[in-house]
């Protein structure tokens, strides 16, 4: 397993105002798999991802990255962990405006003081189709190109796991398909582990497995999804949600 969550609870506030975002969740993320997390707004899917990635703390329970328990780690260790073992792709604002594309791609390694693996870097840049745009600043790139830079950054450091938070949420369908294609390819061809939060059935269809969250619990899962099957399942949930 690349990552595991055991009995994870995330609650805000206390007493009457207590809101539970994650309710004793158990999740296993398999290595070399592309996992999508879906669910309606407020279902806790982003919170789950943040907790798995060591960005947020949990109220109780344990989270493991490989065999390392990350719950309870101090900020310094968590930062190192994110830097060395995790990759991120956010929905927007993925890049530092002051750095050009290649500087953004190598940033995590630069911060760590590691030399990037030239061959691998070239391959990643080649894969995402950014050669020739490496000296451009983010403002000189299109939205799709910017997200591809973000993907390249996530891949370049060869992290154990990549977390994506609606990585295609701000893109049109063609650019989105491109980015998702790269993510899919990196899993299939390079054995990368990816966890992605999304509410788009098409995006989810690129995954090997889809987890459905509702009210802080995992309510269902689906392997080898297609856009149609995901959509159907969601309609299903919606209908149930309305009747209950």
């Amino acid at each position, binding site marked *: 397993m690349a990552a595991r969550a055991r009995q994870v609870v995330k609650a805000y506030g206390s007493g009457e105002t207590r809101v539970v975002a994650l309710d004793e969740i158990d999740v296993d993320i398999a290595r070399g798999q592309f996992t999508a997390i879906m669910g309606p707004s407020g279902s806790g899917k982003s919170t789950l991802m*943040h907790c798995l990635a060591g*960005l*947020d703390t949990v109220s109780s329970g344990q989270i493991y990255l490989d065999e390392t328990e990350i719950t309870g780690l101090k*900020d*310094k260790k968590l*930062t*190192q962990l*994110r*830097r*060395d073992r*995790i*990759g*991120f792709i*956010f*929905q*927007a*604002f*993925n*890049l*530092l*405006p*002051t*750095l050009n594309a290649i*500087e953004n791609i190598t*940033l*995590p390694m*630069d*911060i*760590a*003081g590691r030399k990037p693996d030239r061959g691998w870097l070239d391959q990643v840049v080649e894969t995402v189709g950014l050669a020739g745009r490496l000296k451009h600043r983010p403002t000189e790139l299109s939205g799709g190109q910017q997200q591809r830079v973000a993907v390249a*950054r996530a891949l370049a450091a060869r992290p154990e796991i990549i977390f994506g*938070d*609606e990585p295609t*949420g701000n893109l049109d369908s063609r650019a989105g398909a491109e980015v998702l294609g790269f993510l899919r390819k990196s899993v299939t061809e390079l054995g990368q582990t990816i966890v992605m939060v999304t509410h788009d059935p098409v995006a989810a269809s690129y995954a090997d497995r889809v987890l459905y969250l509702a009210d802080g619990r995992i309510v269902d899962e689906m392997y080898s999804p297609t856009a149609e099957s995901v959509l159907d399942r969601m309609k299903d949930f919606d209908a149930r949600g309305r009747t209950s």
Partner: protein
Amino acid sequence: MTVLKTSMRNFFAHKGRMALSAVAVILSVAFVCGTLVFSDTMNTTFDKLFAATSADVTVTSKSATDPGDRPDTGKPESMPASVVERAQKARGAESAEGAVSSESVTVVDAEKKNVGPSNGGPTIAGNWTHNDLRSMDITSGHAPRGPTDVMIDADTADKHHLEIGDELRTIAVTGDHTAKISGIATFKVTNPGAAIVYFDTPTAQRELLGATGRFTHVNVTAEKGVSDAALKRDVAGAMGADASAYQVKTQQETSDDNRESVSGFLDVMKYAMLGFAGIAFLVGIFLIINTFSMLVAQRTREIGLMRAIGSSRKQVNRSVLVEALLLGVIGSVLGVGAGVGLAVGLMQLMSGVGMELSTQDLTVKWTTPVVGMVLGIVVTVLAAYLPARRAAKVSPMAALRDAGTPADGKASALRAVIGLVLTGAGAFGLYTASQADKASDGSLLLGGGVVLTLIGFVVIGPVLASGVVRVISAVLLRWFGPVGRMAERNALRNPRRTGATGAALMIGLALVACLSVVGSSMVASATDELDKSVGADFIIQSDNGQAITPKAAKSLEQADHIAHITQYKDIKADLTAPNGKTAKEVGLSAADATYAEDLRTETVAGTLADAYKPDSMSVGEDFAKDHGLSVGDKVKLAFDHGRTGELTVRAITSSETAIDSGAMYVNITTAAKYVPADRMPPNVIMFAKAAKGQQDAAYKSLKTAMADYPQYKVMDQTDFKQTLKDQVGQMLNMVYGLLGLAIIVAILGVVNTLALSVVERTREIGLMRAIGLSRRQLRRMIRMESVVIALFGALLGLGLGMGWGATAQKLLALEGLKVLEIPWATIITVFIGSAFVGLFAALVPAFRAGRMNVLNAIATE
């Protein structure tokens, strides 16, 4: 109304972001108000003192004017006792009393320590009169009754732990008298810092005037119901035939005249401090402009929305100005309050250096808060005007765009052109000034050049920022890897902001650099001149500006191992040139012929030694030019209180000298022919040359000769140079201290820029933290950015200031400031210090950035 409401809400919503701007306004206003309150309080103190010490009507000798105006003869002008009797007989006079008072005294205690004030306040000796009872009470012992009694004021007694029975020695040109303290008198009003001793009348007359039956002035008390003015008329009438020899003044007139004598000093101090407050305001303007620019930039979307739903440009503009108005009002009100506190603090500080001021006299005129408020509000609103205009230009479309970070301001080409033109014009002015043949012509050019280059640098700052920041970063930040690189990029991303922040620091540091260059050039030039032209081994001079008494001069002449001793006196005369041109009250340096060896002043014509021949003299180059004099010309001299003689000009001295520039030399024996012995002033300074090879022995011997006179210092050349250096250093330190205010405001500016930048870059910081930037790296990044901005300001400021200083030196070379010395130690210290200032300024912003919640920072709505 809604405009006002949104402004208020905005203002209070961002009160933290306004805080530093408010501090800048508070500091500047406080400094202005503090200065005003302080100087008004000093005026009140002196007014009260002089009102208490002046009699209803005072009669003085007409020639007794301000002692600073004429050579100190060491003997006050006096009048015969008959004047007292005449005043007594005047109608309306209840009583008249002869008084003796002299400021040409030094009082030392049994351990030969000067008990007089060391801060330039006077030591006054006189007879104890009824008039003194108006301002003082005898609080212990009794008034002086005979030649062995002396009474002293309580403040001085306290300061030097003097008690009744202690011995005090009073040294004047006319006497050297030791007496025991018989009483201590305490002032009823505040005595700002004079040391006062009283004798009985015969002793005061003998020791201070060197004559019996004479007085320096007469205090006349009016009968009940007689006004001072009426009494003045009657007393003047009673003076009879030689009424023209006396001045009769009412209490008001006496106080006014006394006030006049101190107000020059008070005004200089007041205006100097206001000048520094002005610089602080100038620096504060940058801070305020930056704050509002950043707030407007961060609020672009909000302003766009306001415009989209129908706010006019004018309303947007006004809403920003209203916020500035609020800031100005709040800052000014607090500033006025802080100013009064500052004045009290200054008073305490002054008492530390011996100038006593009482909080009872604290004077806050109604104009003070008004001036402070108006200044604070006007400056704040004006500074916010540019950002407000920019806010008004925000298009309604801005509301629809992605939030992101505000657009990074680029330095425009127009700005570069304007900046270059201004700087070029300024540099040309400076260059022309450095080439001027007359200092007076060049000074205007220098002033213009300074102002133009300063403005030019402020304008061009943002353009320079990118280049200079890159250079500093290349040298400094490359050791810090990607963190350094990001710090560099951050400092570069908004050159206008970096430029303005650096410029604020630049102003203060430019002044520091300029003054330190001028100061050290002054010391270097004088040292150079001393080495080149001073032949004397020793200089003997008092430390309180008093003449050397004949008795002390005699003991100097009796010192051993001496080749020669030179006397030097200042005398005055009216000079008439052959072409009929007359110069009134010209100062002449009457010295022994050996002075030509002691100070080898260069001549442009004739030989200096010839000027000491009988009935000969020398004149300065400029004076000779103005009066058409050349060597061999005969000039008529009407000596002050003496006869008229005809002297031959034998030498014309060069004006390019720092020491004795423009002095006219005449031999003492020549002067003695025309000035009566009792009018011949004592030496103001004396010089000595050691017998060959007996330097040390001579130094010791001279010191021994002066052991009884703590007020006179025997200095060899090393001592003298050190004294010079100390004096210049002291003055510079004072100026640096006052410039500190402007620098503090500039540091606040750096803090402000960083703090607002951190807020603005919340999402970026969150992203970096998410992908693995540690807190330490983040903090270091912000510190590095701060250091780079500070060094940018320092580099510009120091460069500019050194340019100014060098130009001033070139210009003043004509006045003897021949050597340019750049005080590298100071310059480098300031530069390195600026780096620390940068680190310090980044402390809080870096800490806050480190504590920022990663999740909030990256959250997408």
